[in-house]
């Protein structure tokens, strides 16, 4: 049997928060979370703001070190093999972080060089990806600050895929996009998964997106994974007619989309 692409067991992460003079409280951002994602599978993590989605993605991206638990991405474990893990993951976060004064081309070539790639070859791949995402080639030389949020997010996806990673970590990649851009990104991710067999871990607030893209979904609430299964299984288990209702029934919470980028990454 093929080993899972992502294996997370009993993962815990807490943050200390000052609450008054000399008093510190501990806040569990990820609380004993376990799940696995098969190779080539798209797995969705759904949860409201502060449920631990971003912390989980950040741990898997080597940007946050867990307090305890076991994390393996393909053949490598974290935090011991961070260097190797960085070569096999691509990440897209909710805020498209770029050098905004630089053009898309300059930003992407910088990333290609950072990954030790040949800039010319990387440029060809980036143009291919951007065309598939419905972006015109002429936009390639436009500074990022002159682009819409949808376009910036497409560039962000091209950046993550430029190195052709076997694992893609997507943290609310379509939040704030217009319907057309959202559809472009979703279609592209489906193609990518089919064509390259990329394993995708996706966090989202959008139930329709989760149903369309993910073969299995995990519900996160207050740092805990409270339910997991296919969309049909989750609805059956909760006796709900929609995934939205299933989420409310199983977690006791409502999903609210991020309103800005200042979401606390717990």
């Amino acid at each position, binding site marked *: 049997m093929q080993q899972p692409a992502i294996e997370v067991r009993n993962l815990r992460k807490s*943050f*200390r928060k000052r609450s008054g003079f000399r008093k510190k409280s501990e806040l569990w*951002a990820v609380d004993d979370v376990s799940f696995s994602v098969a190779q080539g599978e798209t797995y969705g993590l759904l949860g409201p703001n502060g449920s631990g989605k971003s*912390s989980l993605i*950040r741990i898997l*991206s*080597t*940007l*946050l*070190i867990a307090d305890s638990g076991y994390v393996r991405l393909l053949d490598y474990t974290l935090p011991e093999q961070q*260097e190797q893990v*960085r*070569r096999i*993951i691509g*990440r897209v*976060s909710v*805020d498209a*972080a*770029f*050098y*905004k*004064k*630089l053009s898309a081309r*300059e930003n992407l*070539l*910088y*990333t290609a*060089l*950072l*990954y*030790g*790639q*040949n*800039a010319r070859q990387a440029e060809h791949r980036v143009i291919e990806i951007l065309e598939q995402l419905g972006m015109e080639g002429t936009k390639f030389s436009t*500074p990022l600050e002159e682009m819409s949020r949808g376009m910036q997010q497409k560039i962000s996806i091209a*950046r993550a895929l430029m190195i052709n990673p076997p694992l893609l970590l997507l943290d609310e990649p379509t939040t704030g996009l217009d319907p057309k851009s959202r559809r472009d990104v979703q279609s592209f991710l489906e193609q990518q998964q089919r064509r390259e067999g990329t394993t995708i871990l996706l966090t989202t607030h959008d139930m329709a997106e989760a149903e369309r893209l993910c073969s299995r979904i995990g519900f996160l609430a207050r740092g805990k994974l409270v339910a997991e299964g296919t969309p049909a299984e989750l609805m059956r288990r909760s006796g709900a007619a929609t995934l939205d209702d299933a989420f409310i029934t199983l977690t006791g919470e409502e999903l609210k989309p991020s309103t800005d*980028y200042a979401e606390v*990454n717990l």
Partner: protein
Amino acid sequence: MEATLRQTWAFLFRGYHITRRYIGWVIVFNFYALVTSATVALIGVAANDYQLTLTLVVGALLWNYLSWLYNEIAMSIAYERWEGTLEYTFMAPVARSVHLLGVSLFSLLNSILTSTVVLVGLMLFTNLNLRGANLFGVFVVLAVSTMAFVGLGLFAAVFPVMSAERGAEATHIFQGSLLLVSGVYYRIDVLPAWMQPLSALSPATYTLSACRKLFGVGNSNSTAEHLAGAPLSAVSHELLVLALMGAILLPLGLFAFVRIEAWAKKTGKLKRTG
């Protein structure tokens, strides 16, 4: 090896394009560096004292070079935090030593450019004659002191990793303290007695002391027409101290950076705040 060279080049590539896009600000900063240096040097011209003028010119020139180098390295991390790109740099499979080497190389090129602008400007403002100065010796001292200042820059770069807001403030406080205690424009013995021992800890103190000797400042054989620059052997003590400081500060700065990066990943301090 090829991949490492590309990764090093990535930081030069990024720095070049950012400079190009912010060229207006680059001109403003260089203009400001030139004007502040010229106003200091003109104090010597007004006093009709070429030795004082030379002291101030050497101070202004070297401080521009060293502080620019330190500041660019230290602030490069702060810029990345403000742009939100630091996470992506930390997520890339690039060794921290290669990352900081690339940043330091670009900062060095930037410092050389600004110092050249200031040097040319100061020559126009002061009419100084540098004939007889040991310029080769000055070049050697600068090359050796560069290592120590890159190390200091790496040390200061940990502040923005710890805190995006407070970190940039801390790097400037540290830079200001160096300016105060290193004898950039005055002799160290004019500082309050309790402060004077601090000057021994600053690499700028030794760089300035050595370069002034090599230019012939304070040498009774120096005249306005022909300076009596000291031979390199006369600054062997300063060179030794600077080499030692570089040998200690460079690896220590890198070590501190790696430790703080690990701490930031444990405490969740890397998330975007700017």
